[in-house]
C-alpha cells in the first residue's frame, strides 16, 4: 500500500496571518513539502495542473522532474494531468521525458478539468470534455506503444507516420490512473485498458465513489486484466492532525471556513460527517481512513490533501511529520493485515511493468536510425524495427 500527498497547487491567503504567498514562495514551498514527504517515509507526491491564478502548477512535468532529482524513493505523479486541454502528443513526449529522468519513479493521473474558461484558451470546448478526454487518451495510449502512429480523430489534427520521442523508458509506458468521481465512461476506459482508477474522495459522500469503483472492478475483470480484487484503485482523502481532537479542530477551523470550494458553506463538523475529511488526533484519522478500505475494498494508493487553503509551510511540514510518524505506519500495518492476498499490495511500479513485459529478458532500448528528414518514408525509425521497407519506389 502506498501513502502520499496530493496538492492542487492553490496559492491561498493564510486566513490567520493574512499573508498571501508569492508564486515564488509557494513554488519553493511545494518542493520542500515533496522532499519532506520522502523524509517522513511517504511514498508518493502528486501535483495538480491548472492554467489560471491562483494556482501555480501549469507545468507539472518540470516540477516533478526537479523533485525526482532531489529524492531517491518518492514516486512522483499528478492529480491530475488534463487530458482534455493538453495535446496528447505533448503529454506523450513530456511524460516519457519525465519517466526517463525519474528513472521510472513516476506515473500520472488523468482528469478532465472542470473550469470552463480554460478550455477555449487551448482551443477546446468544455461541452466536448468527455469525448475529448476519451479520444485523447486513446491516442496517448497508442503513442506510447507504437513507434509509428497513423491516427485521425474528431478533435486533433490527424497524424501520419508520427513517432513520439523519447520512447518510454525501457519501452514500457508509464502507469496511468484515470481520475473520476461521476463518469462511468472514464471508469470503463480505465477498465478497458487495465489502468488504475482513482477517486478523489474529497468533497462528496462515499456512495458516489462506491458505485463507480464497483463498476470499474467489474469491468476490469470483464476485459480480462485480472479479478475484481486485482483491479488497481487509488483514493484521495483529506486530514488535519493534532495531538488531540480539540486542538486539531481549533487549528484547522479558520482554514476550513475560508477554504476554496467548500469554505463559507458547510460547517467543518458536517463536512466531517458527510465526506472523508478527518480532523482530529492521529487515532481518529487512522480510524476514519480505515473505513475507506471497508467501503471500497482493498486499494493500492492513499493520497492525502494537506497543503491547501492557505496553510503555512511550517504547518504543512508538521502535518507531514504527524502523518509519517503516527498515522501512516499504523495504517500500513493494519491495512496489510486486512488485505486479501489476491489483491495487489501496491500499484505496479516501473520494475513490475518491465518484468511483466520482458520477464527475465533485457528491456528494449530503442536506438533511432539516422535522420531521414521525415517520419513517413521507410519502416520504423528505430534500428530494431521488424518492418524495414526493402525497396523504395524508383522513377
Amino acid at each position: 500500500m502506498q501513502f502520499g500527498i496530493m496538492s492542487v497547487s492553490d496559492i491561498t491567503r493564510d486566513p490567520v496571518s493574512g499573508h498571501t504567498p508569492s508564486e515564488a514562495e509557494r513554488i519553493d514551498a511545494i518542493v520542500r513539502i515533496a522532499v519532506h514527504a520522502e523524509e517522513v517515509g511517504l511514498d508518493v507526491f502528486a501535483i495538480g495542473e491548472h492554467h489560471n491564478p491562483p494556482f501555480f502548477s501549469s507545468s507539472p512535468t518540470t516540477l516533478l522532474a526537479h523533485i525526482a532529482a532531489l529524492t531517491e524513493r518518492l514516486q512522483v505523479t499528478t492529480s491530475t494531468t488534463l487530458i482534455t486541454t493538453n495535446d496528447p502528443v505533448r503529454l506523450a513526449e513530456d511524460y516519457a521525458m519525465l519517466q526517463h529522468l525519474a528513472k521510472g519513479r513516476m506515473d500520472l493521473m488523468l482528469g478532465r478539468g472542470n473550469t470552463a474558461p480554460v478550455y477555449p484558451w487551448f482551443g477546446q470546448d468544455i461541452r466536448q470534455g468527455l469525448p475529448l478526454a476519451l479520444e485523447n487518451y486513446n491516442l496517448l495510449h497508442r503513442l506510447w506503444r507504437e513507434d509509428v502512429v497513423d491516427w485521425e480523430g474528431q478533435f486533433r489534427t490527424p497524424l501520419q507516420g508520427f513517432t513520439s520521442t523519447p520512447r518510454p523508458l525501457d519501452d514500457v509506458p508509464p502507469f496511468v490512473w484515470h481520475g473520476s468521481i461521476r463518469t462511468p465512461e472514464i471508469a470503463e476506459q480505465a477498465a478497458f485498458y487495465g489502468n488504475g482508477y482513482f477517486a478523489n474522495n474529497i468533497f462528496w459522500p462515499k456512495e458516489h465513489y462506491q458505485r463507480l469503483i464497483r463498476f470499474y472492478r467489474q469491468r476490469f475483470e470483464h476485459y480480462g486484466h485480472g479479478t475484481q480484487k486485482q483491479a488497481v484503485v487509488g483514493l484521495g482523502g483529506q486530514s488535519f492532525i493534532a495531538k488531540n481532537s480539540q486542538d486539531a479542530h481549533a487549528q484547522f477551523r479558520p482554514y476550513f471556513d475560508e477554504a476554496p470550494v467548500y469554505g463559507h458553506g458547510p460547517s467543518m463538523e458536517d463536512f466531517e460527517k458527510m465526506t472523508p475529511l478527518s480532523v482530529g488526533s492521529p487515532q481518529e484519522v487512522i480510524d476514519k481512513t480505515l473505513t475507506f478500505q471497508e467501503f471500497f475494498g482493498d486499494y493500492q494508493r492513499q493520497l492525502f490533501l494537506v497543503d491547501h487553503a492557505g496553510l503555512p509551510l511550517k504547518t504543512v511540514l508538521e502535518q507531514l511529520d504527524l502523518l509519517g510518524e503516527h498515522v501512516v505506519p499504523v495504517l500500513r500495518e493494519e491495512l496489510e493485515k486486512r488485505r486479501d492476498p489476491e489483491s495487489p499490495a501496491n500499484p505496479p511500479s516501473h520494475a513490475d511493468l518491465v518484468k511483466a513485459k520482458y520477464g527475465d529478458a533485457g528491456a528494449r532500448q530503442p536506438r533511432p536510425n539516422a535522420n531521414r528528414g521525415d517520419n513517413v518514408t521507410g519502416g520504423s525509425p528505430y534500428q530494431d524495427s521488424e518492418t524495414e521497407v526493402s525497396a523504395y519506389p524508383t522513377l
Partner: protein
Amino acid sequence: MTDFRLVIVSAGVSDPSSTRLLADRATQRVSSLAEKRGHTVTTTVIDLRELLPELPAAMSSQLLGPRFTRAVDALVRADGLVVASPVYKAGLSGLFTSFFQVIDNDLLIGKPVILGATAGTARHALVVDEEMRALFAYLRTLPVPTSLFASTEDWTDKALGARIERAGRELVLLMESGFARAVRDESWDSYQHSYGSAGGTELDIDLSSDMMRLATGGSLRDSDDDPFDPRRA
C-alpha cells in the same frame, strides 16, 4: 384504488405560516377528493425552513445533509406535489427557488403539481403563473391548470376555496392517470440524465453508447469514413 403519495413543499417561514396554511388546505382537498374516489393518500410535508441549516452546503458544494436527503427521497417516491411559496419583493422566496435549484433536474419529471403562493397584496398574483410555472416547466413537471394565489383579502373570499377545490380535483385526476409512471416506464431514456441523478436512482450504464465505444478504444467517426478505424479490419 391506489395509494397516492402526496408530498407538500412549503417555503413559509413564520409559524403559523399562511403559505403552509394554503398548502394544507390544498392537501386536505386532494386527500378528501381522492378518498371519495376510492383512493388513499399518504402525505409527507417538507417544511423548507427546517432545511435552512443544510442549504449553504447544498448550494456551495452539492453536499446534501440528512434532511435534504430525506426530502429528495420523499420527492422520488411522490405521485403528486403541492408546492407553496411566499412572495417577497415581487418574486418567489429565495428558499423556495434554492431548494428546487439544488435538486436534480430529472427528479420530478412528469409529476403533477399544484402551484401555490401567498402575498401581502394582490399585485403579486401573477408570480405563480409567470415565475413558478416556468420553474416547474423547466423541471418537466405537470403543473395543474389552476394556480393558487392568496393575498390578504383572499382568505375571507369563498372564491379561494373554489379554486382550491378545482386545483385539488385536477391533481387527483392527473395522479389517477398514472402519467408520471408511464413516462418513467416508456420514455425515461429520452430525457437527459447523468449518472446518479434523479435523486441517486439513475444508475443504469449504457455500455453501447457512442461514448462507451470511444472509451474502449473506438472512434467517434463513422467507421466507413475513417481509414484507420480498427473496426474496418
